[in-house]
């Protein structure tokens, strides 16, 4: 077996050194009645060639998103070849969490740079070294707000991605916390400030919201702060922050986000990378790993994991979160992509996205039976179509166009079956737009 270096001869020698006669003897502590006495009912091991064939056949049974207008929390962007090359460097790919800083300065410096980039991008003071993804970061933000405010009620905007809202509700329900979720807010008209009372620990608002609308969060921030609550802002499309005022500028207390858009492929939903940023004052209530700067015994600048007194391996049942493994390699991809872009490149990428979406929206608005609902948006907007959106998407898929996310996929039974979320990023060409329009006109 190509992955196992020991030969039968090696094994025999090693057993002799140990003083056991057989391989089975090493399992003497396992009760006889739980030892497996038959071979597993699984295929035998296969060579690379066969495994490749098998998996490639599965992959071919998926329609890869080449003419695709899907978004709703996961976005198709171009990833520079150097990003994927660098994250496959053995020293990044096959290292562990940097517990031994002396021989992990590569990973640690990357995390320090990542934290700085995330803080800058969100307009916040500090950020952590990544979470699993945007939705779990969002749920952690609610828990953190409870710790900070010593209250236990979160108010969720109707513009929050329904899956994010579900994740928050699931965790809160088990943790014994309260959650108020507002009705789906297609036009970003909800008055969430009216929901803030003295029990509310935080308000969670998304921008651009799940329907694509941009929001000025300042009034909500002010209302929160007046009541002693925190404003948690959610950003599911990190590229938008190259063009849209960041939550930090509006006074958000915690910003969480999905970082997939930078450096990470769609990959059917994971692995992604959660962003988590907050104000300096809340530092010690922040979940997740943190990398900090210090000096070594020779006085040289060094980086270490720090404030681990908050973490599970020290604090155990008093920890700020139970996170251990997070999204290091995805954070690396995010950070490299952002380094390549730089401020100028990110702004241009964001403009290219916005331009592409505006152009598509303008063309779609001219299609009979289609209405663009958004006044403002970044690279995603909501269509009202003259038929069931989910069925329309299926019909378009047969014509080679993945047309978007029907709102009913996220909110079944909400009476929003005629709404379709449509995204257009820098990868969509003019021909893609034309194909979409043509397929849509044919299918409506």
């Amino acid at each position, binding site marked *: *077996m190509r992955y196992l270096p020991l030969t039968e001869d090696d*094994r025999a020698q*090693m057993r002799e050194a*140990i003083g056991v006669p057989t391989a089975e003897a*090493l399992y003497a502590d396992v009760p006889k009645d*739980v030892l*497996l006495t038959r*071979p597993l*009912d699984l295929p*035998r*091991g*296969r*060579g690379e060639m*066969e495994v*490749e064939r098998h*998996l490639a056949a599965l992959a*071919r049974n*998926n329609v890869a998103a080449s003419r695709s207008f899907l978004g709703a*929390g996961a976005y*198709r962007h171009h990833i*520079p070849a150097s990003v994927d090359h660098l994250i496959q*460097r*053995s020293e*990044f*790919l096959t290292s*562990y969490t*940097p517990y*031994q800083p002396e*021989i*992990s300065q590569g990973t640690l*410096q990357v995390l*320090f740079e990542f934290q*700085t*980039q995330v803080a800058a991008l969100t307009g916040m*003071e500090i*950020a952590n070294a990544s979470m699993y993804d*945007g939705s779990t970061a969002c749920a952690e933000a609610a828990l953190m707000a409870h710790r900070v405010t010593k209250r236990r009620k979160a108010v969720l905007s109707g513009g929050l991605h329904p*899956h994010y809202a*579900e*994740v928050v509700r*699931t965790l809160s329900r088990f943790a014994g916390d309260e959650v108020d979720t507002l009705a789906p807010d297609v036009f970003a008209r909800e008055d969430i400030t009216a929901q803030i009372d003295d029990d509310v620990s935080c308000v969670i608002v998304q921008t651009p919201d799940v329907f694509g609308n*941009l929001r000025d969060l300042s009034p909500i921030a002010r209302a929160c702060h007046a009541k002693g609550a925190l404003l948690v802002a959610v950003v599911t499309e990190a590229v938008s922050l190259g063009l849209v005022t960041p939550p930090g500028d509006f006074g958000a207390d915690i910003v969480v986000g999905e970082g997939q858009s930078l450096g990470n492929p769609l990959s*059917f939903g*994971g692995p992604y990378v959660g962003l988590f940023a907050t104000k300096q004052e809340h530092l010690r209530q922040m979940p997740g790993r943190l990398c900090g*700067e*210090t000096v070594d015994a020779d006085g040289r600048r060094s980086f270490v994991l*720090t404030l681990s007194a908050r973490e599970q391996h020290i*604090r155990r049942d008093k920890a700020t979160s139970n996170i251990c*493994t*997070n999204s290091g*390699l*995805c954070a690396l991809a995010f950070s490299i992509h952002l*380094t*390549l872009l*730089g401020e100028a490149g990110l702004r241009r990428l964001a403009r290219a996205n*916005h*331009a592409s979406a*505006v152009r598509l929206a303008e063309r779609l608005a001219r299609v009979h039976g289609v209405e663009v609902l958004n006044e*403002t948006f970044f690279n995603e907007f909501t269509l009202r179509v003259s038929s069931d959106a989910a069925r329309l998407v299926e019909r378009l898929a047969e014509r080679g166009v993945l047309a978007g996310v029907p709102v009913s996929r996220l909110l079944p*039974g909400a009476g929003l079956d005629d709404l379709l979320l449509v995204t257009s990023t820098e990868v969509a060409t003019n021909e893609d737009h034309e194909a979409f329009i043509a397929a849509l006109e044919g299918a409506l």
Partner: protein
Amino acid sequence: QEEPLLFEIGRADVTGVDIDEPEPFTPRLGALERTAPIGLPGLSEPETMRHYVRLSRKNYSIDAGLYPLGSCTMKHNSRLAEKMARLEGFANIHPLQPQATARGALALMEELSRFLLELTNMSAVALSPKAGAHGELCGLMTIEAALRARGQAQTRRTVLIPQSAHGTNPASAALLGFTVRAIPAGEDGIVHADAVAAALGPDVAAIMLTNPNTCGLFEREVVEIARLVHESGGYFYCDGANFNAIAGVARPGDMGVDAMHLNLHKTFSTPHGGGGPGAGPVVLSARLAPFAPVPFLLRDGDSLRLVEHAEGTQSFGRLTAFHGQMGMFVRALSYLLSHGGDGVAQASRDAVLAANYLRARLRDVMTQPFGDRLCMHEVLFDDAFLKGTGVTTLDFAKAMIDEGYHPMTVYFPLVVHGAMLIEPTESESKRSLDRFVATLRALAESAQRGETERFAEAPRHAPRRRPDETAAARRPVLRWGSRQ
């Protein structure tokens, strides 16, 4: 040569990505355009390559050397798995595209599930947890949902956890509002049924047991413990972090386990990536299966469907935005198909053999907390052999760095003084193990000879010497530019 920070070499007007400025158009941003400087320096592509290549060279990695971190299972990561995860049909599919256009993905999830269920002899698997600790949450939530269905969610608020457990166990339990009741281990390092019996009661929701445990020992009384827990109305959560000792050899389902997370990034070799991403699917017993989170796979005759909404089911809800770590599923399945049933069992046996070999070759110069006995896939030493030398476990670990090795896990489990937990995995050749033995023996003998300086000063041959962690925590500097 030192590598500066990105922020010291990058510039806001430099970019390594060429994107055309769009044709003029009418923005739809309202008044929300970002105008102030963001503070994100860029690098050209050559500078980017050099920055990260140079940083990478300051890291240790499994590709470059033995990585004996106990409890972490740093085994070989194949490049086949990386290649497979990058197939266009896996890497470039959207989680919300019509399920009919993602049949291969669903089939892959089902095939992976089949492997995991046969390996564990369990009934169902929740694929969406993002890592081991997330899997723990998932398992405990499933248990609570089952208790709720029985009307006992309010009364059973205690979780039994041995003191040797990973910190994530109590942290997960506490996060969900459970009270943690510690169970002591016996003198022999394992949990005894009578200790469990003593701790059980009508308030107990579950026990969380790691098996093999973090002392490297198999919990010999596991079957009896499971029986006691079940009898008392609780559930048995098993921390699967150490599954690499027994995969293909013994099955948790046969031990009475109700829920167990599998760390795909440990047992099934998806790379650790400097701290993730992982994947922590949770296998469930028949009693718990109905309460698994959404999304879950349902087979309708010939076709597969992902159920994405809990309404109308007993599912406890949603744990994460999408379906789980698909990229890791591909890699894990690549591992499993490559090994096959036979190979997985052989890998476990080799991992246990390697740990015992280290034990046998080191037992005369290092000390074991629970006597010289068979271990599973990791071997635990304590610091008794360093007594009186002035050398601490930490010193010993740092001295290993100077010999070209990553240290083992130290000071864990907490129940053992100066613990050193070594997990060689099945990926090391005998020659590699022999060299490692020779190094550790030489270090132990050096310490015993009183050559304390090499330990106190270690490491001296690494990119850095020991950093001042206290200063880092006292005045945290978490981003560039914030020191001023």
